[in-house]
């Protein structure tokens, strides 16, 4: 397949895009625009898909396996993190058939505790790094932050981009930082948080998505969850279009992670429909799509048990961690 909905250069040229500020800028500004009304309408239409019975059961189990169970509070303690890890390994203690979640996501200081609690579980350990959530620290600090998290056992790093530099038009600086962090990650997977709520326009979301992918990110992620506007369906739609087009241009599949504000099973299923009908079913795997969420898991478990037993058990029957 050839490059589809973008004027992306042929495969061998994309490596040249990041060569200097001018090439990067002209590439990002050469991407087709996004019509905001149209994008919202498409996301809303897909939101009306009706997912029932067997399809719903399948989607709920997949959504559980895609959850990055997250705690990012100043008040996090080793006890809290251990409890979360126990939940991640066995989300529903009453049902051994319930799959574990994809990953646990914590601050770097909590990585050693989580690493110990997750040993042998197959659950990934993600850590936010690079002066999360603002990204406003010197590059050296960000890199040290990243190396420390990896050294302590994180196999996934959720970095934030430098939104200040992006909005000022210094794309090469954002690009260089991502490249450097990717290097500091070593074998760990890199998720690049765009903080789309601060980028404000869908054109910016598309540009930032391409920037992160060109610089070597393995995942692009919507939000930190620390600003008022977190993940939305239209923003995720734009990002899914970007990974689809990037794959068409390079053959490489990049993951997408909406994070923040996804609380219900109904919402999660809307996202899965969006993935299915935008990027395609190759993306319907925890390797390429994740939910950054904390409260979503319990609603998924309640709906899951409702489908199995036919009755709602109520919030007292799922664990609060």
């Amino acid at each position: 397949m050839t490059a589809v909905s973008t004027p992306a250069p042929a495969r061998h040229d994309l490596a040249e895009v990041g060569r200097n500020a001018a090439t990067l800028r002209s590439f990002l500004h050469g991407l087709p625009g996004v019509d905001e009304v149209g994008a919202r309408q498409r996301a809303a239409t897909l939101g009306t898909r009706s997912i029932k019975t067997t399809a719903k059961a399948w989607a709920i189990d997949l959504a559980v396996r895609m959850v990055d169970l997250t705690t990012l509070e100043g008040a996090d303690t080793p006890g809290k993190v251990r409890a979360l890890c126990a939940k991640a390994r066995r989300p529903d203690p009453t049902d051994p058939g319930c799959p574990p979640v994809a990953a646990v996501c914590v601050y770097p200081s909590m990585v050693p505790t989580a690493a110990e609690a997750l040993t042998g579980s197959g659950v990934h350990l993600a850590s936010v790094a690079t002066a999360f959530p603002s990204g406003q620290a010197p590059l050296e600090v960000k890199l040290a932050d990243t190396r420390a998290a990896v050294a302590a056992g994180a196999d996934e790093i959720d970095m934030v981009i430098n939104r200040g530099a992006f909005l000022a038009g210094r794309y090469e600086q954002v690009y260089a930082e991502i490249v450097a962090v990717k290097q500091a990650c070593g074998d760990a997977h890199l998720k690049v948080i765009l903080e789309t709520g601060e980028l404000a326009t869908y054109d910016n979301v598309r540009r930032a998505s391409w920037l992160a992918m060109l610089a070597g990110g393995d995942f692009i992620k919507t939000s930190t969850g620390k600003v008022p506007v977190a993940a939305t369906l239209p923003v995720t739609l734009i990002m899914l279009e970007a990974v689809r087009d990037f794959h068409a241009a390079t053959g490489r599949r990049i993951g997408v992670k909406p994070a923040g504000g996804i609380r219900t099973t109904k919402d999660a299923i809307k996202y899965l429909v969006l993935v299915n009908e935008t990027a395609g079913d190759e993306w319907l795997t925890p390797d390429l799509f994740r939910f950054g969420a904390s409260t979503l898991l319990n609603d998924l478990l309640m709906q899951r048990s409702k489908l199995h037993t036919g009755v709602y058990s109520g919030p007292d029957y799922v664990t609060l961690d």
Partner: protein
Amino acid sequence: MFDYAPAPESRSVVTIRDSYGLFIDGEFVDPTDGGARKTVNPATEEVLAEVAEAGPGDVDRAVAAARAAYQRVWGPMPGRDRAKYLFRIARALAERSRELAVLESLDNGKPIRESRDVDLPLASAHFFYYAGWADKLPYAGFGPDPRPLGVAGQVIPWNFPLLMLAWKIAPALAAGNTVVLKPAETTPLTALLFAEICQQADLPPGVVNIVTGAGATGQAVVGHPDVDKVAFTGSTDVGRQIARAVAGSRKKLTLELGGKAANIVFDDAPIDQAVEGIVNGIFFNQGHVCCAGSRLLVQESIAEPLLESLKRRMARLRVGDPLDKNTDVGAINSAAQLDRIRTLAAAGTDEGAQAWSPPCDLPEQGFWFAPTLFTGVSQAHRIAREEIFGPVLSVLTFRTPDEAIAKANNTPYGLSAGIWSEKGSRILWAADRLRAGVVWANTFNKFDPTSPFGGYQESGYGREGGRHGLEAYLDV
């Protein structure tokens, strides 16, 4: 694989009677000199009901009832009181929208997603909108005391049965006219349920009369000497016959006829949304849309990647059971229409254009046509000139903006057009030059009761919707 399990809307929300009479003077009556015909579900060919066929004597009764109601009740009634009835009808349409949507999908074949999210909300909105005008006619710009015309004879098509009924009846009643409406012979059921809503709303008898039947019934309505106003939506051929029939009479006429709209995609378009707009332009309602974007004019420099995107998107269209909430493209409305689509598609291939359809399993029963795209189409091909009224898109290319406009306007029709560009000045430049009643920019097939709709040239004359829509029903 994410296989969506069937999610059918329940049929039990609507009761379909075995047979229906004519709605004349507030009551369902048997035809005196006509017969009956069956209406089928085009998705299964199952017979839904038997519907009366009105003959000239029945039309006579209906027109007489409308005349009496006009003279005694509806004409003299103050606008604010007419508004109350219209508001009541609007509310009833909204309240019974699920029932009406299911019935519309059963009788017409359109997906429930569209009847539920487009047809019904718009039909109700149309009544709400014109209800608001009923007591404000002196402020509509047609003089201090604009008068109604009298009895309106209205003939509507099968593609949006209830919505077209709303477009016709709401402004007529708001302006103080009474109506005799003939729904299409393949889709009479929602009009008959609407008749029940008129009863439920306590609308005075004779204000709305519904006579079912085929072409002969329509001719009787249009040609009736006591009809003051004729409104028709349908094919250009029938429109011509009607224009001939009313020529030289006092009857006022509005026609909303066919189209062959150009959807123009410039190289600076928002590509992903343009692809959505192309799909919505031609596959919405199986392409049974007079303003469908059936000619895609794409700038040659982006034609190849755009078509790749379009094909990938078309492969996602879900064709099948109209009552399934996840269906995007439903059934073709009738065997006759399916024949016409097949004939024109075959002509496309014969004349050298290349057809492409995504792989899709069509049901064995019923009338179905896979979404189809033709490339290598030239202006001379039949599929670039004739209205197909089906899910068939003809793709043409252009090199410069001038060429795009020239090709877009090179049609005897002129109902609608679409422009896709991120450049505001280009949109305004193109909109100025397109000979079309409606020009959409970075969207397509968007309707609103406040916005006038209608055509140029052989797409007809007169406007429906908005303040302009009142003019057709006022003596101005």
